[in-house]
């Protein structure tokens, strides 16, 4: 029992260590991506700073707007980062050519996904925090009233469902060796559109608002704003956490189940690899 757990922990850790090694070896790309992300986050938040000039109105609370947009861009970076790390799990190994060796090992899928998710949360959190620190240094923002522990709880609950969605999306490159990776980007774009990253969901057309209700990102963003921008919400934080936990509890096992089905399918049809 203990021995079994120890082995599973090692197997999960295999993915954590491997991914950090990849980050280390591809550090040039990481630097580029960090610089790009910072520039991107800054250009979004400067929209807030420029709101008065853009509209000609003087009574705009620009700091509020900047914080609103900053939360949007950081949360989106975090969630889409988690989604990418998980959903590219297969595509990346296909590209490296190691996929058969990983799937051939006596490692259970949930052990693999646990390792991949642990890496994703730690790494993307560090990455996002760096962006946040750099961007906030450009502005004079006040987070003294913010509910930071609440924000962390929301983020973690949100990660759970995004890991689940990522697992479902990772199936696409398994089933469609050529176009699968492109499809996962479409899924991501849809989340960006409906979840209220840079605007309240209420400005969307009715039908998109309906779609937004099934996106966990909607609850993460609303919850984060409630935690970090006091006075913007009269709902308790828990009202954002529950839907997230619920979606996570459904999506994660569902994702792993679908993954196993897809893996079986590729083994029947020979879609995994045919050379060699």
């Amino acid at each position, binding site marked *: 029992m203990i*021995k079994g757990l120890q*082995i*599973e922990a*090692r*197997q999960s*850790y*295999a993915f954590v*260590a*491997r991914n950090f*090694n*990849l980050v280390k*070896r*591809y550090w040039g790309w990481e630097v580029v991506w960090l610089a790009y992300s910072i520039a991107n986050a800054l250009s979004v938040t400067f929209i807030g700073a420029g709101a008065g000039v853009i509209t000609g109105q003087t009574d705009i609370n620009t700091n509020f707007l900047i914080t609103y947009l900053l939360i949007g861009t950081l949360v989106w970076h975090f969630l889409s980062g988690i989604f990418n790390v998980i959903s590219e799990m297969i595509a990346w190994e296909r590209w*490296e*050519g*190691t996929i*058969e*060796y*990983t*799937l*051939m*090992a*006596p*490692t*259970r899928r949930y052990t693999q996904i646990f390792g991949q998710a642990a890496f994703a949360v730690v790494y993307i959190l560090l990455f996002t925090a760096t962006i946040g620190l750099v961007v906030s240094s450009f502005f004079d923002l006040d987070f003294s009233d913010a509910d930071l522990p609440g924000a962390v709880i929301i983020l973690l609950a949100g990660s759970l469902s995004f890991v689940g969605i990522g697992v479902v999306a990772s199936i696409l490159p398994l089933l469609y060796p050529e176009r699968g990776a492109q499809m996962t980007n479409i899924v991501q774009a849809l989340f960006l559109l409906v979840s209220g990253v840079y605007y309240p969901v209420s400005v969307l057309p009715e039908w998109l608002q309906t779609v937004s209700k099934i996106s966990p990102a909607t609850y993460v963003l609303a919850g984060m704003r409630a935690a970090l921008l006091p006075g913007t919400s009269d709902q308790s934080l828990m009202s954002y956490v529950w839907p997230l936990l619920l979606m996570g509890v459904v999506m994660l096992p569902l994702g792993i189940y679908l993954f196993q089905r897809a893996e*079986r399918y590729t*083994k*029947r*049809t*020979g879609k*995994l*690899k*045919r*050379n*060699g």
Partner: protein
Amino acid sequence: MSTKIDQVSTSKRTTSTHLRIAPGEPALVVDRVYKRFNVASEPWWRRVLPLGRAQNGTEAPANGNGHAPKARRGKELVTAVNDVSFTVERREIFGVLGPNGSGKSTLIRLLSTLLVPDDGHIRVFGFDVVKDEMQVKRLINRVSVEAAFFKKLSPRENLLYGARLYGVSGKEADRKAREILKRLGLKESSYTAPMEDMSRGMQQKVAIARAFLTQPVLLLLDEPTTGLDPRSKLEVQSFVNELRDVHDATILITTHDMNEADALCDRIAILDDGKIVALDTPENLKKLVGRNGHEPTLEDVFMELTGKELVEKDDVEDYQPEKILAG
């Protein structure tokens, strides 16, 4: 034999790979196995012109588990493994010899749980590759013709990853990997440098180390020496012998090099278009053909049995390091 390697063998079976194996079970039983693939049809001009390789058999198979694929529109069924049966005893080095496209890799993938047979059964030490997938995975490992590593990662990083997936601790894997790679003649400094800078022969040695680290009782080697220079080839072959002699491994090796099969294997199955056309010891196989003024070779045997050349002209020059690294 170096004492270093002996230590590896004494610390054997300390990891998760140990499983209760029923005594007397053969290492591998392959029983009437079929595998077919749906592939894009050949263009009509290719079919009309009498070029290219022999037509692959597409005759209707005995349907077993209902998973047998049907040809879809614009596709045709290729029977990659066609009613294959054989048994490999423990500590045997069993060769599968066949030209490119004869189904060797497909067979290896079926044994290593990467493909599910359409029909028939495969048992590894009594465990069924489909029903007892996890147990089988613990007992086997595979070396493929392309090295299949994270190119930017070092052998150390790649090997630790591979070993941890099998529940071996990083520390133990590191120690053993150093021993094995030293035994195989890898430079100390290469151990921590990116794999992409290595020669194909070196990469293949790391690939063998990766398989060996998990202490498989059945080792599947898919053309492990294809594209290696003659010296690396011999080194790999002697290590294969050592794995059996010192570490009690059972080895199934595919090759299209008849000298290698002759030198290494206790028994050889000759595969052609997915079918086994002969199975025996190298000596007995050679007795099948009369001598035409020289000692018969396995090449002659293959010609005699199939009417084809074993190695086609364009297969000979398959040493393409960049391609192989790119997977």
